[in-house]
């Protein structure tokens, strides 16, 4: 108990004193996971909407693949992204391995299927006759898509939360493709692993608390947006 208590006190001190290293790690985590989430939204929402609303041969297979992708183990993603970015790999010439960009790529691969899969589910839970009604009201194709996305905004925001939650907390892929280099690719999760391994529980607890607070802050913000005007 003593250990935990001391750790919590030290963590509070580090957080409130504004420790430079910890601030840097936190900021890098936000940047990397934020970028990966935004990129996954740019791909996942249109892809999910398209898969949900159109009919084409092979559609079920596509959806099954997306759903499988929602459960990709981060270490497997880390492994394959590493191979692709390896010096002798297909994208080795880009020299991206052990850079923040490499982590963004890996986290994007993890988040994109989550966002796509939840977008498909969000769009499919809409009443199929709503499309007809909106067309009948004079919606153009673009207006129709916008209105349908707006109708599905609650589960779509849940998709964003799940995507961000999936990558901010992920450690395996970040470690493998980022290398946990101090000042360059060290993020909250990889730093926590390292400090715990070294027995620096105070720093590890501080990092863990920050990670929790960060996740809470982002989800609280999204929940506020989601539940706006929903007192009933």
């Amino acid at each position, binding site marked *: 108990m003593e250990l935990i208590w001391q750790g919590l006190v030290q963590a509070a001190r580090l957080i409130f004193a504004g420790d430079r290293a910890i601030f840097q790690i936190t900021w890098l985590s936000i940047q990397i996971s934020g970028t990966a989430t935004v990129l996954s939204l740019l791909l996942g929402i249109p892809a999910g909407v398209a898969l949900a609303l159109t009919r084409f041969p092979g559609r079920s297979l596509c959806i099954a693949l997306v759903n499988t992708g929602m459960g990709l183990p981060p270490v497997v993603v880390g492994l394959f992204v590493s191979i692709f970015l390896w010096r002798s790999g297909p994208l080795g010439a880009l020299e991206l391995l052990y850079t923040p960009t490499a982590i963004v790529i890996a986290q994007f691969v993890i988040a994109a299927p989550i966002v796509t899969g939840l977008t498909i589910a969000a769009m499919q839970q809409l*009443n199929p*006759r*709503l499309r*007809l*009604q909106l*067309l*009948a*009201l*004079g*919606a*153009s194709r673009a*207006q129709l898509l916008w*209105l349908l996305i*707006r*109708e599905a905004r609650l589960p779509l925001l849940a998709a964003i939360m799940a995507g961000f939650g999936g990558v901010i907390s992920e450690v395996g892929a970040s470690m493998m493709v980022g290398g946990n280099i101090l000042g360059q690719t060290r993020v909250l999760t990889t730093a926590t692993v390292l400090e715990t391994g070294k027995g620096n529980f105070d720093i590890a607890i501080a990092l863990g608390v920050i990670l929790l607070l960060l996740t809470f802050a982002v989800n609280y913000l999204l929940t506020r947006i989601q539940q706006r*005007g*929903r007192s*009933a």
Partner: protein
Amino acid sequence: MTVPILEGRDLRVHYQGQAVLDVPHVVVREGEVLAVIGPNGAGKSTLLRVLGLLEAPTAGTVLYRGGPVSPSGSRGLAIRRRFASVFQEPLLCDTTVEANVALGLRLRRRPSDEVAAETKTWMERLGIAHLARRETRTLSGGEAQRTSLARAFAIGPDVLLLDEPFAALDPPTRDELLTLLQRILRHNGFTTVFVTHDRNEAIRLGDRISLMMDARLLQTGPPLEVFGRPATEEIARFVGVETILPGRVIKEQNGLLTVEVNGVKIEALGTVAVGERVLVCLRPEDVVIRRLDAQAILDSARNHLAGRVEDATLLGAQYRVRVSCGLPVIALVTKQSFDNLGLGRGTPVAVSFKASAIHLIRR
């Protein structure tokens, strides 16, 4: 003759090889309410979707003011924006009542002062102004359908397409909304295609009635014609004729026909030639019943038949009485008359009906 506002020619829709719509010609005239009635699955909603440019027919053409139009492309959208539809489900967006009523106008990018004015007007006319800021998911069925109707009217459509808008409502709410709709249609003269499976709704709203069965429009005309002079046995059954009996015309004198049914002679009006085989149609509300032992009351009815009550079923305020009098005749009797006459199974009675109440269908 003026060009109809909406017209369909040789419209056919097939789903998986099965014809769900087969309509050689349908016309919607400016300012009229065309009620399309028929049983569920007859193709009424498909007809409405095709006319409303929401679905391309497998074959055939839709004409808007004489010009062919199709659902696709910017022209399809432009024409579709002159229509408004209300479906059985209100299908409202998950926002406020006001935003829903304004939606059609917003999609058309009308100026915001116009949107506000029209929205306010139609919320008031549909009696939902006090609900303006309410989220639609908190509305009752009736309130939601009022919102859906206001949303359609606010557009100021050239053609209003209503697909069983009251089918999911409870009877008092349905009646209230039907009255309101009737008043608005009469006042604003909206050209309307009104699809329903309810005969009473069709009679109340329709200037003309089209009867649809098995993907086809079988008979179109003024309500009294379709309901009083159904063209076929199946139409007759659908429009509420309960006594339908095969017979043969055996005599004609000054337009008054004598028809033999089951060995019983009935007088009828019509233009069927002597010797022709016919179906004799009689609506239950046109039949009068009295006790056989009562003193005969002289009336203008041509046909008087003696028989016995076979059975009686209470339908709300009326009894549906089946009388066997050489031929089976079904009559409607108010509950009060039924009790006053002391009717019951086996009671000897006389039924009477006018020659003009008989409608003959050639076989």
